[in-house]
């Protein structure tokens, strides 16, 4: 047990030190994790053999990431992507495979091996690309979207690849019967590894639950023995389960869980959902990443979307980090040193080749400017799928062990170089593009409007939200009452369940990209806490807060709110104005008197606040709120009494004709002037 703790500590400590360092140096978190891996792995040898097992576990981070990506992507958006998904994705995989396989054949590699290598290297790293794009804010750019389409296609393409690879087996080692056993036993080592993709999944399942099926061809799929019709039906069945659960059962379930008010149970529910879908997909031989992605897309419109995101996010982050560390730790120095020239050459060739294909596709698909470079350089590496396919190729005897070891190094190295390509892109290419595009005076496509987050949509927040929505401002609305959220959803207001005072939820609601936060939650203490925390973390974000009363308003302003309004002030003033009108005041006079009142209130505001703060300091925290408030009331009363005089004079100035006799005076002056002339 202690041993595990030590290992866990080594991994965590490495990440804790390296990742912030890398970020500070502007290298991005991915490179930080990779370097941390290299330090604890090949460099110091602190960790060793368990890295590979750990990597399979860590790959579950990718599954979670695709779930989160799915949550961000509504079905109709996915449908809009279809041509890019198939066209761009298909051509990228096809083109890269042909180019890499062709090059390999020039170096007299057997065509079967060359084709396998081409397929493996054609895939890119979903983990690195999506993580880095999110970090750099490129996800919503055209280049980011195009990259995502290609990655999604690759994810789907892995499945047919797993089916196809066994056919490329070397004729010399044509011992198909053996292979299945080998595959099953190798994969069984990773028992408990829910996340391992396609091959492992199926094989694990075969080894764990279905001993008889150990002998089927290729060892990839326990259901492959079934008649095709039934197999197809089982796949359709599994997908239907995901759709039905996501569409119809999840919301009542989440509401039921949310009603319990236990946060950890909600987290457990979210995890159970993702893990369950992964298991289900594994059973029918589909990629768990794809399954959870689908579930994410279905839940993208759910009111629990942000709560799900904020619950899964930390797990995803940790697992992905762990995955990058294992990639770094997996780099073998002896192999690297012995084959340095070869490895570096192949890695660079792969990157250049893939980049070339991507650049051509970007031109064909009219991806312009900096977006073209984002697409080209982002996807030029080989990815984590590569590890899976390499292991599988070894099992089915397509590639030999020595070759697999070298190629795995190429995958790792290319992943290592990706963050450097991002830096090149960000620091060198993008500034140049910006300059030239500025010269061309080309108009920018507005990616997405700055969002306004509204915390609390009761009586108050709702009105703010409606006014903003009516003017085309996109809002994200959060409320901690599932009932309230449900009601609002009925009248088609996009609202999400969740405790807005939790920073993670605000994070998933997109507070980094938001331009404003409106705090309209009823709980005064929590509202105050929220304003304080948000201003501390995001000093540039505009925070507007609804105050309960005067003391509350001062506290909110003190906590850093940019604009505070007392919830009853304006309606009370309006009522007062109406009362004056009923009492016989001319409407325009009532309007002016009310304005004068408001002006006095505004004038005395600073004074009152100052006195309020002094009271606070004099008596310390122990001074009761009531006492403070009474002092405040006295101060206000004094101000109002004084005000009577002021108001009178200020109102006098509203619209006054010249005094009586003024005209006569002018006339006589004129007469005198005329006479003297």
């Amino acid at each position, binding site marked *: 047990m202690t041993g595990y703790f030590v290992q866990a500590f080594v991994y965590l400590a490495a990440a804790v030190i390296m990742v912030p360092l890398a970020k500070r140096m502007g290298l991005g978190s991915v490179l930080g994790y990779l370097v941390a891996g290299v330090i604890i792995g090949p460099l110091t040898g602190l960790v060793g053999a368990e890295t590979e097992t750990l990597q399979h576990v860590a790959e579950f981070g990718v599954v979670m990431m695709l779930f989160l990506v799915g949550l961000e992507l509504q079905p109709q958006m996915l449908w809009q992507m279809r041509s890019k998904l198939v066209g761009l994705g298909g051509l990228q995989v096809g083109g890269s495979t042909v180019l890499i396989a062709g090059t390999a054949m020039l170096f007299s590699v057997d065509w079967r091996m060359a084709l396998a290598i081409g397929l493996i290297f054609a895939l890119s790293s979903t983990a690195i690309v999506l993580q880095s794009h999110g970090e750099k804010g490129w996800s919503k750019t055209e280049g980011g979207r195009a990259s995502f389409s290609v990655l999604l296609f690759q994810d789907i393409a892995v499945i047919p690849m797993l089916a196809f690879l066994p056919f490329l087996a070397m004729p010399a080692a044509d011992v198909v019967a053996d292979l299945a056993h080998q595959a099953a036993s190798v994969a069984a080592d990773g028992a408990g590894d829910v996340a391992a993709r396609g091959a492992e999944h199926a094989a694990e399942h075969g080894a764990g639950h279905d001993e008889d099926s150990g002998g089927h061809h290729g060892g990839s799929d326990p259901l492959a023995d079934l008649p095709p019709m039934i197999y197809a039906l089982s796949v359709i069945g599994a997908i239907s389960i995901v759709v039905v659960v996501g569409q119809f059962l999840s919301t009542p379930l989440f509401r039921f869980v949310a009603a319990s008010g236990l946060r950890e149970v909600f987290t457990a529910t979210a995890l159970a959902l993702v893990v369950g879908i992964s298991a289900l997909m594994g059973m029918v031989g589909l990629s768990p990443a794809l399954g959870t992605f689908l579930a994410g897309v279905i839940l993208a419109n759910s009111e629990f979307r942000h709560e799900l995101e904020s619950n899964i996010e930390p797990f995803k982050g940790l697992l992905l980090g762990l995955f990058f560390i294992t990639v770094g730790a997996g780099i073998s120095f002896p192999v690297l040193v012995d084959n340095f020239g070869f490895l570096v050459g192949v890695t660079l060739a792969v990157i250049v080749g893939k980049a070339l294909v991507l650049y051509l596709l970007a031109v064909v698909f009219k991806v312009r400017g900096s977006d073209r470079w984002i697409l080209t350089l982002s996807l030029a590496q080989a990815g984590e799928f590569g590890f899976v396919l390499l292991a599988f190729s070894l099992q089915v005897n397509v590639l030999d062990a020595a070759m697999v070891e070298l190629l795995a190094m190429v995958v790792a190295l290319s992943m290592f170089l990706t963050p450097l390509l991002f830096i090149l892109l960000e620091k060198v290419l993008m500034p140049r593009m910006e300059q030239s595009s500025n010269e061309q005076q080309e108009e920018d496509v507005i990616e997405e409007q700055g969002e306004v987050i509204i915390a609390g949509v009761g009586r108050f927040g709702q009105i703010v939200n409606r006014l903003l929505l009516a003017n085309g401002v996109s809002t994200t609305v959060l409320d901690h009452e599932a009932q309230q959220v449900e009601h609002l959803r009925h009248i088609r207001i996009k609202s999400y369940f969740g405790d807005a005072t939790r920073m993670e939820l605000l994070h998933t609601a997109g507070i980094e990209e938001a331009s404003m936060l409106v705090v309209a939650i009823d709980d005064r203490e929590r509202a105050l806490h929220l304003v304080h925390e948000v201003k501390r973390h995001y000093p540039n974000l505009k925070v507007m807060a609804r105050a309960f009363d005067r003391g509350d308003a001062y506290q909110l302003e003190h906590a850093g709110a940019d604009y505070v309004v007392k919830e009853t002030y304006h309606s009370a003033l309006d009522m007062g104005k109406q009362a004056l009108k009923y009492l016989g005041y001319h*409407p325009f006079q009532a309007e002016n008197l009310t304005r004068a009142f408001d002006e006095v209130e505004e004038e005395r505001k600073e004074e009152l606040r100052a006195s309020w703060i002094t009271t606070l300091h004099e008596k310390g925290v122990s001074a009761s709120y009531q006492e403070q408030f009474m002092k405040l009331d006295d101060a206000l009363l004094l101000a109002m009494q004084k005000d009577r005089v002021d108001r009178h004079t200020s109102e006098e100035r509203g619209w006054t*004709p010249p005094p009586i006799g003024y005209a006569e005076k*002018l006339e006589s*002056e004129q007469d005198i002037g005329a006479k003297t002339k």
Partner: protein
Amino acid sequence: MKQKILLLFAHPSQHRSQANLPLFKAAQNIEGVTCVDLYGEYPDYHIDIDREQQRLLAHDIIVFMFPFYWYSTPALLKEWQDLVLEYGFAYGQGGTALAGKHFMCALTAGGSEKAYRADGYNHFTLGELLQPLEQTANICGMKYLPPFAIFGSRTAATDGRLQEHIQQWTRLLSAISEGRFDMEGGCKATSLVNQLDKLILEAV
């Protein structure tokens, strides 16, 4: 023929009005005159354009009634002109809604009539100073009547002139409303008050 009169009254400080408000109140008792207190209806300056245009369409004579202030109308009445007299409604292509109607100003001025002369301290006659409104009426195809003006309004009440003014005012309005007023002659006159007896036809 009966004429429907729209009286648009704009006074931002009615509790201090000595001449203008009494004239407005007197007009409220005359049949066929629609009296609108603009500052009362739009204390926040938010004018309902459609409603005001409907009102214009429903009347034959449009009267602006206001205290003369800085040689112009009070702010709300200017806002009313800017918003209500829209292109396509009051002028421009298809803007014929007001064509053929009559337009008149009824105003109170602090200075004496003497002041509104070339050699007075205001240097221009009232007619000259009202030329922007006259031209507005022209553009809208309305026939412009000379203003019904009360000079020295600040002292009208104390000088005991107010009752006379009110009488002239109600006489004029009733005559117009009942179709007993020589509109054509009125348009050519330089002052309505001086020629009231000539322009009002006692029996129709």
